[in-house]
C-alpha cells in the first residue's frame, strides 16, 4: 500500500478504500478516487448517499473510518495545514456575517489564505467583479439575498489561490446567469491546473469530468449479508 502511494505514476490527489461512518451507520465503503491536475470529479447520488461527507473527508474536516488520502504521494494526515492551504471548501453554509460588508468578508478569507495582504486585496476586488458583486461591495451581509450570499461565498474561491476546490452543491440559490459564470470560472480554474470535486443535483456543465455514483459504494443493507 505504501509503495503504491509513492508510485510516481500515481495521480496527484488520490483516495483509496475510503469508508465513512455517520451516526453509527456506514454510509459508503471501499471508495477509490483519483484526480490529476485539471481534473474534475462530479459526485452524484440520492440524498444521504454521502456526497457531503465525502467532500468533508476530502477537505480534512472529517476523518474516514478506513482508507487513505494522499496528495502527490504524501498522506494528508501528515500535514493537514498544507492541505488546508491548497484547499477551498464550500459547504452548505454561506459563512455570511450580518454586520460585515461583502468586501470585508471576502478579504478576510483571502488574507487568511494569502501570504501577501496587498495581493489578497487586489484578488478580492477582481473576484467580486467576476461574480457581479462589484456594486454590492459595501453592502452588509444582512442585506444580501440567498443567491447573493452564495456568490459572495463563491468569490472566496477566486480571492485566494487554492488548487483543490471542493464544492458542495455550489449552484443552490444561483440564477442561470450566475451558474454560467460559475461554469466559466470552473473551466478557467481547471485550465490553470486546478482540481474540482463537485456535488450537485442541478445541471452544470463540467466537460470531461469523471462521475462518481456514491450509491454504488453503499454497504449492503443489514440482514442480507
Amino acid at each position, binding site marked *: 500500500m505504501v509503495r503504491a502511494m509513492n508510485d510516481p505514476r500515481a495521480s496527484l490527489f488520490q483516495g483509496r478504500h475510503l469508508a465513512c461512518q455517520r451516526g453509527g451507520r456506514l454510509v459508503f465503503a471501499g471508495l477509490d478516487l483519483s484526480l490529476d491536475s485539471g481534473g474534475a470529479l462530479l459526485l452524484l447520488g440520492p440524498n444521504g448517499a454521502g456526497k457531503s461527507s465525502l467532500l468533508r473527508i476530502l*477537505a*480534512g*474536516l*472529517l*476523518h474516514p473510518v478506513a482508507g487513505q488520502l494522499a496528495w502527490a504521494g504524501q498522506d494528508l494526515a501528515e500535514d493537514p*495545514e*498544507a492541505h*488546508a*492551504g491548497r*484547499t477551498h*471548501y464550500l*459547504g*452548505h*453554509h*454561506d*459563512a*455570511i*456575517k450580518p*454586520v*460585515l460588508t461583502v468586501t*470585508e468578508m471576502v478579504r*478576510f*478569507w483571502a*488574507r*487568511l*489564505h494569502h*501570504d501577501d*495582504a496587498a495581493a489578497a486585496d487586489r484578488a478580492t476586488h477582481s473576484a467580486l467583479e467576476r461574480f457581479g458583486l462589484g456594486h454590492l461591495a459595501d453592502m452588509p451581509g444582512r442585506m444580501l439575498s440567498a443567491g447573493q450570499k452564495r456568490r459572495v461565498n463563491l468569490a472566496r474561491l477566486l480571492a485566494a489561490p487554492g488548487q483543490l476546490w471542493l464544492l458542495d452543491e455550489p449552484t443552490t440559490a444561483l440564477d442561470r446567469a450566475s451558474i454560467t459564470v460559475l461554469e466559466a470560472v470552473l473551466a478557467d480554474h481547471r485550465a490553470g491546473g486546478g482540481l474540482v470535486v463537485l456535488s450537485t443535483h442541478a445541471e452544470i456543465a463540467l466537460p470531461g469530468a469523471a462521475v462518481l455514483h456514491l450509491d454504488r459504494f453503499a454497504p449492503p443493507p443489514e440482514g442480507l449479508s
Partner: protein
Amino acid sequence: MNRFFDVVRRDLRLALRQGADSVMVVTFFILTVVLFPFGLGPETNLLERVSAGVLMVTALLAAMLSLDRLFQADYEDGSLELLVLTPAPLELVVAAKMLAHWLSTGLPLLVVAPLLAVLLHLPAEGFVPLLLAMALSTPALSLIGGIGAALVLGARRGGVLLSLLVLPLYIPLLIFSVGAIDAAAQGLESTPHLLILGGFLLAALVLSPWVAAAALRQAVE
C-alpha cells in the same frame, strides 16, 4: 502572524458593530455591583470588607455571560469550518479569537472596575492590586472559558452547561485575586498572590488554545 491579527481585527470589528456583547457585559457588571449596597445596607465598614470579593465575583460572572458566543456564531454560520481549513494553525486562530474576546469584554470590565470600587468603599491601597489582579485574571477567564465554549458547541442549552464546566475552574483565580486586594488593604504584601495569578495566566495561555482547538476539530466533524 499577520493571520493572527487578521482574525483579531475581524472579531473586534464584529464585536464593535454588533456591540451587544460588550455593552451587556459591562452593564451586567455595573448593575450587579450596584445591587450589593442596596442588599447589604450602606454601612461603610461592611462594604469595605466585602468589596474585593463582590467586584471579583461579579466580574467573573459578567465575563462568563458572553463566553457562549465566542465560537457559537461562527459554528452556526459555517465560518468555523472555514477557519479550521485555513493554512494557519487552528491553535493560532483560537488564540486570536480568545484575545479578541478579552479585548471586547475583559478590558471594558477592567476600565469600569475602579469606578465601582469607589462605590463599594474599597480602601485606597486596594486600587492598584485590584487593577493588577483583574489585568491578570480576566485574560485567564477568556482563555479558560474558551475551552468551555469550544466543548459545549452544538449542545442545547450550551450556556448553562458552560457555566457548570467553567465556574469551578475559576475558583483559584478568584481566591488569589481577592487575596491580593485584601492583603494590600490590610497593609500586607500582595505580590505573592499576583505572581500566582500570573502563573495561572501563563499556564492558561499555553494550554487553552491547544485544548480548545482540539475541541473545535471535534465539533466540526
